[in-house]
């Protein structure tokens, strides 16, 4: 019987400090075993449990897209015991990955529709995965207009700067990256995500919007979405809660009857309306 608690061993191939405060770091991971790599069959929106021996596990959204090859990318904010230990690991270190876990963004529903991706701050990891996936040559034709609205406090707090640079040059994505306040050398948009969303005004007709970000951003963006005509069914988000098992058993991450780890983390606003706000 396969043990769902046993992490796959992986090697840290590369680390990148993403932000100017040096608190957010990306880890590019390679599986030690070919069969583990094959077994790790994921879809954007899913997450994995990252293990550091002696410290424990931490659930992190998968930032890479399955279209990018065999490597996995995770972007980790230094916050607690495990994430701090993870930040201290050097390239070449061995660690563990358990997953993929959770549901994913609803690509079956997104197919044939316009997709608006709205992200804020550090909650951009699985949104990166989603955009890379949709822009991939094999998939791009499946989706209509793709609109990106992504904001951070400062230019130095934006994640994935090289990837953003590439996207900005493409003509098959509406690229709207913004910072809260004007900054030296910044030539892009300035303003908070809700305001920028209102300016960009993506159409809600035959469309899906995916929104991830800090609670305050979500709180002020949702009314804008309603104004733009997005129904709760068309508006998708991803939740976070404390987790341990990641497979719907250990009991702590539930929001009402739903386990964020197994039934989520992706929920529509229509689903969330029926659920207690315990997240």
């Amino acid at each position: 019987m396969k043990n769902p608690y046993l992490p796959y061993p992986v090697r840290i191939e590369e680390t990148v400090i993403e932000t100017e405060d040096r608190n957010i770091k990306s880890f590019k991971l390679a599986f030690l075993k070919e069969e583990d790599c094959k077994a790790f069959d994921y879809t954007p929106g899913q997450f994995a449990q990252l293990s550091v021996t002696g410290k424990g596990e931490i659930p992190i959204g998968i930032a890479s897209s399955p279209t990018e090859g065999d490597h996995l990318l995770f972007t980790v904010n230094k916050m607690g015991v495990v994430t701090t230990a993870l930040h201290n690991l050097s390239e070449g270190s061995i660690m563990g990955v358990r997953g993929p876990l959770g549901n994913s963004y609803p690509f079956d529903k997104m197919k044939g529709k316009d997709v608006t991706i709205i992200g804020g701050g550090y909650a951009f990891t699985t949104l990166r995965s989603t955009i890379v996936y949709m822009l991939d040559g094999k998939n791009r034709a499946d989706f209509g207009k793709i609109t990106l609205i992504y904001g951070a406090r400062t230019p130095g707090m934006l994640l994935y700067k090289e990837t953003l640079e590439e996207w900005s040059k493409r003509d098959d994505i509406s690229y709207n990256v913004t910072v809260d306040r004007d900054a030296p050398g910044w030539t892009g948009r300035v303003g908070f995500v809700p305001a920028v969303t209102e300016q960009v005004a993506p159409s809600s007709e035959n469309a899906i919007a995916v929104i991830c970000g800090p609670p305050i951003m979500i709180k002020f963006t949702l009314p804008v979405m309603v104004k733009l005509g997005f129904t709760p069914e068309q508006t998708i988000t991803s939740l976070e809660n404390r987790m341990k098992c990641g497979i719907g058993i250990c009991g702590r991450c539930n929001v009402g009857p739903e386990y964020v780890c197994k039934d989520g983390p992706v929920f529509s606003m229509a689903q969330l309306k029926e659920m207690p706000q315990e997240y």
Partner: protein
Amino acid sequence: MEYMRLNKKNLAAFIEELKQKCEVWGPVKEGDQVKFAPVSNVSDVDLEQFKNTTMSPKEIFFPQSEIMLSFKREGEGANIYRDEQSVPSKKAIFGIRPCDARAFRILDMIFKNDQFADNYWLTKRDAVTLVGLGCKEPCSTCFCTSVNSHPFDETGLDVMVTDLGEHYLLRVLTKKGRELLAGSHVLREPSEANIEAYKTVRKNAEDAMTVQFGTDKVNGKTVLELFNEDYWQRISEPCLNCSTCSYVCPTCHCFDIQDEVFREGGQRIRNWESCMSWIFTVHATGHNPRPGKKERVRQRFMHKFKYIPMKRDGEIGCVGCGRCVTMCPVNIDVREVVKQMNS
């Protein structure tokens, strides 16, 4: 249905027979507590006085602390987690109460969901044959008949034993049960009268238990209707937020996973944890989705009486064993709580 009869005088011989096939566990007194343990001497087991074990028997399959994985820090294979599952020995557990056996069936559904199977639970479960003991005289704190069960509920059991005074009547319920009893020299064919006596004992026990509350209205209400009720504040007021209710409960199954380090390596261990603890849900940021005792007490009752039934075809996440009723240090009585939920 197959029936067999065991004269009480032959209980010791019967246990010895079973021991030839597998380990035999029964309710054994240890200090103030009664717990399931290997029966070395049949005189350790007093089935006449036995009501139920102090702690629920879930610990047989789901120990309070369990090593899941191990790792070493140096050398070949360093920092790679290894599976630490051992092959469990075959056991027959004698004297399990119907409520607790039913709880195992509920936990089977929890530990094996539509996507994942917890092999630590499953392998130990598979190795066990459950010989139940029907409840001739349920306690006043028992309420199995209020949660879709009854004192002779056979759910989850392989054999059901009924005390008929001079004899035990054994009802064989599964293939596993049949295999356990096969070849016994002390079991006899019961008489028609024995079987009639069993039916009477069973009926009397069931009649003696009044249904204390219903759950129909709980089922009819939405999650948010129940969640937003005012009574949670009052119900939770006396709560100490200790974990007694969760730890004595046969269906509470929440756990924590921790890495522990020793000089040369370490282990990944799972430990029981309770939704009564603030630490259970706190985020690394310090935000806690269930910050106070109202939220935590509500979670425990909602989980058992609303969330589990919603997700498991109406199965209630409580079997009515009454342990939390007797053990809660501040007398938060689940029966009173569900009466309010169902009002």
